[in-house]
């Protein structure tokens, strides 16, 4: 590792806030762009399945 310890990795010689906030925002947005549509699709499948069962019961 370039840095001598984790404290230095966190500090990044004063640039810590910039680097870590950039990576944190990126992580959150990239996670959201995967999780949100995945959840939506599961919802859709559940809805379709429910509708199938409703029409079959009639």
């Amino acid at each position, binding site marked *: 590792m370039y840095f001598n310890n984790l404290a230095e*990795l966190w500090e990044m010689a004063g*640039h810590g806030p910039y*680097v870590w906030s*950039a*990576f944190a*925002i990126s992580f959150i*947005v*990239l996670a959201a*762009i995967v999780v949100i549509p995945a959840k939506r699709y599961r919802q859709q499948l559940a809805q379709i399945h429910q509708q199938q069962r409703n029409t079959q019961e009639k």
Partner: protein
Amino acid sequence: MASWQWFHRLGSPKWLSGTIDRWLPWVLGLGTLLLLVSAVWGLAFTSPDYKQGNSFRIIYIHVPTAIVALAAYYVMAVAGAVSIIWRMKVADMVLRAIAPVGAALTFLALVTGAIWGKPTWGAYWIWQDARLTSMLLLFFLYLGIMALHDAYQNSATGNRAAAIMSLVGTVNIPIIYKSVDWWSSLHQPATLKFTEESTIATEMLQPLMLAIPGAYLFFIAAVMLQLRVQIARNEKNTRWMAERAAQ
């Protein structure tokens, strides 16, 4: 002929949905892995830039997201053209799928760029810089396309409007790309080159060579996820979709 078969299959929502289910874990897995490895490598295992110091590490998010945000727009515009010329409903679904992902990537490129700009140039944003302004325009184009999709009761009208907007906006892409060459700008000119040797230091370049393919793969996975939602939305009354939901 095999090529016609392939084109026809591509237009079939059912085939597309099945293919997405099959390939998604691999594309998403590999893309995520590459992004994580390049991030760790870039954050902790490269030496800081002699002028910029450690803030340069933001490059491992900023550059890949910016590159893919641009490429995504072109793909989306092609989908728009296919939609208008051949009236393929899958093309409309692809357009709807790419827009939010492109918007997210452009947002990240802008935000990480602004954060990087503060310690480097002393400012989060400079209006006079052509690349910054044209990237912001790209973000608005993506948002505008998403808004057009939602603005109409009749989704066909929304699709048509969005397809046209996607085509009109393509003029922005070469402007973004060449802005650092055409106008004097604060933003650094390209150090990654296709036909000559890149001027970026090798040690700095290596994680980037993982991050960029990683971002492309991640983008493809994200679009696949959105596309599945669009397919389900369009095909919810079909038999095959009901069978899929019953599994």
